[in-house]
């Protein structure tokens, strides 16, 4: 093939963003949004067969292909969901056509930023890309211009900026640690070079750098106690953005963290990154588990569930080892698919009911059987019940932890059960009991939602051996 897939994955969203910014008419815009996302996804798929050479700026390896594919896939399904969601918002007058032009352009720009962060081989470039993705999502969170949306955007902006600033400080320290070994200039920021020479870096400098990076990118992962922006941003922005925030942006920050964790693990004298990640992961899990009980807003509820899951994922990567990393990767993939599908269904529900308050929604399985049961299925999946894929990955996390650190496993299971109870309680409020709120029909497509659920179900029943082999290989790379 003559077109470089990596260039295509980056250029397509960028060009699409430029066109969408000037294109009048929301139908055309939504259509182009879908087409561009699909094209990026197709090019991402070709990466499975042919892999471009590693350059000083861009890199494709087994680790980031997983993230890029997930990113492009959920980007595409979300653009499909967004097309119908946005049409409804326009009808009820919550958004104006000019907002949509802005929204679509920002959506593609965000995909560009995330893809760039995932493909970057240069830790400075990665930082700039994460900043770009953050900025675009900030603007989309504030899209509705209500007092609450602006507050959410402001909070996200300030906390995100502080996180990003700390991450940059960490990046500078990594450069300082690398410079005596790798030499001055660009070479000392290229990740593949850093990995080769990591064993000779000054370990104490690398330790401090990792703490800054963990706090900085950890803010963007949504780890407690730096999570304060996350529930607001999820609750007040348009629902497609909640879906990509939970499904993708948290992963991108996590990916950045993993890259640095690999560096640290390669240095025999540096601190083990595991205990720090395990601590923050458990804290997020248990904290979110308790917070879930008091939520009265359905989007906020699932936002806290994302904090909980990021906690589990960071915990799994902190436990490390082939099994821990494998479980972390699987959990991350499953969470992304499930949580974005849940947000799709929540988007339909809040549009029908005209409210996000759990008290205003009831009896969904009677009034909208398909939607109601889909939400129930989503919650069953996300709390880790069989036959869905999250069960497989959570089972792996728990069993591997029991084998190595029984005390941590008890805490982990405690946190999981907390969240389990809370989500089950809330979903019964919403899905069963007397019908509350309007019962109008849903004018939207369920295809993206069911596509995600089908994948999650399939992963729970039968994981393709090729995928298992791939994840095992990546898990070994992560150390």
């Amino acid at each position: 093939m003559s077109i470089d897939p990596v260039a295509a994955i980056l250029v397509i969203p960028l060009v699409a963003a430029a066109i969408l910014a000037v294109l009048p008419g929301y139908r055309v815009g939504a259509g182009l949004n879908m087409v561009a996302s699909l094209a990026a996804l197709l090019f991402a798929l070709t990466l499975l067969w042919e892999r471009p050479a590693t350059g000083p700026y861009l890199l494709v390896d087994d680790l980031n292909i997983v993230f890029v594919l997930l990113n492009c896939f959920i980007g595409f399904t979300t653009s499909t969901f967004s097309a119908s969601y946005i049409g409804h918002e326009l009808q009820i007058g919550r958004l104006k056509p000019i907002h949509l032009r802005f929204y679509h352009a920002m959506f593609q720009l965000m995909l560009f930023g995330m893809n760039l962060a995932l493909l970057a081989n240069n830790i400075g470039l990665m930082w700039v890309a994460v900043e770009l993705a953050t900025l675009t999502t900030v603007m989309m969170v504030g899209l509705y211009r209500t007092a609450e949306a602006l507050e959410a955007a402001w909070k996200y902006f300030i906390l995100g900026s502080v996180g990003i600033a700390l991450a940059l400080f960490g990046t500078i320290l990594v450069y300082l640690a690398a410079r005596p070994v790798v030499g001055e200039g660009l070479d000392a920021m290229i990740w593949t070079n850093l990995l080769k020479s990591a064993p000779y870096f000054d370990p104490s400098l690398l330790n401090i750098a990792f703490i800054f990076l963990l706090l900085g990118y950890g803010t963007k992962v949504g780890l407690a106690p730096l999570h304060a922006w996350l529930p607001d941003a999820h609750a007040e922005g348009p629902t497609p953005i909640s879906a990509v925030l939970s499904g993708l942006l948290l992963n991108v920050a996590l990916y950045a963290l993993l890259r640095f964790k690999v560096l640290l693990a390669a240095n025999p004298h540096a601190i083990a990154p595991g205990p720090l990640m395990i601590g923050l992961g458990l804290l997020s899990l248990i904290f979110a588990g308790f917070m879930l009980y008091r939520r009265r807003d359905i989007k906020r509820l699932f936002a806290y569930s994302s904090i909980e899951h990021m906690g589990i994922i960071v915990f799994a990567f902190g436990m490390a080892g082939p099994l821990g990393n494998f479980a972390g990767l699987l959990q991350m993939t499953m969470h992304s698919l499930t949580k974005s599908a849940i947000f799709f269904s929540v988007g339909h529900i809040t549009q029908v009911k005209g409210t996000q308050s759990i008290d205003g929604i009831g009896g969904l399985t009677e009034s909208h059987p398909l939607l109601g049961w889909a939400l129930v299925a989503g919650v069953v999946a996300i709390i880790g019940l069989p036959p869905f894929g999250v069960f497989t990955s959570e089972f792996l996390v728990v069993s591997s932890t029991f084998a190595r650190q029984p005390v941590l496993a008890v805490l982990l299971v405690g946190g999981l059960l907390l969240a389990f109870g809370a989500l089950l309680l809330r979903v019964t409020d919403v899905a069963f009991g007397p019908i509350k709120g309007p019962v109008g029909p849903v004018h939207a497509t369920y295809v993206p939602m069911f596509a995600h659920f089908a994948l999650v179900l399939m992963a729970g029943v039968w994981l393709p051996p090729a995928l298992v082999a791939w994840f095992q290989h990546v898990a070994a790379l992560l150390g």
Partner: protein
Amino acid sequence: MPWVDAHGLSFDIAHSLAGLLVLVSFMMLYQDRLTALLHVLGLHAFVLALSVAWQAHIQAAPHLYITAGIALAFKALLIPYALRRMVFQMGLHREIETVGGIGLTMLAGIALVALSLEVMLPVTEHTDPVAREDIALALSVVLIGLLMMVTRRNAISQVVGFMSLENGINLAATGARGMPLVVEISVAFSILIAFIVVGVFLFRIRERFDTVDVSALDRSRGGQT
């Protein structure tokens, strides 16, 4: 280029400028009027510009002059001026409150400087001496910026805190000799700050909420909704 020896004049000047930046950070902590705070912010960016220009000179790295120029034009002049206009338009040129009192904040600031010296000096023993102390001082500036963002409740003072934090990072980035992408990163940061400032202005936080006190924005906390 002959590398600067550890006790030469250029070494001392680099450190004096970095130390001056920490001092100006402290000056920010006790400003209780927004307009005065903005003046100090301008001074902060001006000192940063001097420091970066000096680094450009001793490292013979002409591209750093761009970063210095951005700091001077954008952060020392344009942003404080824009914020000042905003403050007057919103009628905010009156006292601002701090949480915990000025004395306590200053003590916390001193503790943070001690902490960053304590943390950074031992671990940077093997790097070159200019970077070594610059990084320690830069971390102090970053931490004081964070302290300011935590203690102030006013949206504009939080922006000022963030800008001082960002100045500290610029100091660290330029002190790390030969670091690539410094100019690009300082441009990226300037864009970020411009967005914040435009955001405060466009979203008319005062108009919407009748205050720029962010504690008044905490209406829709999760528990109550």
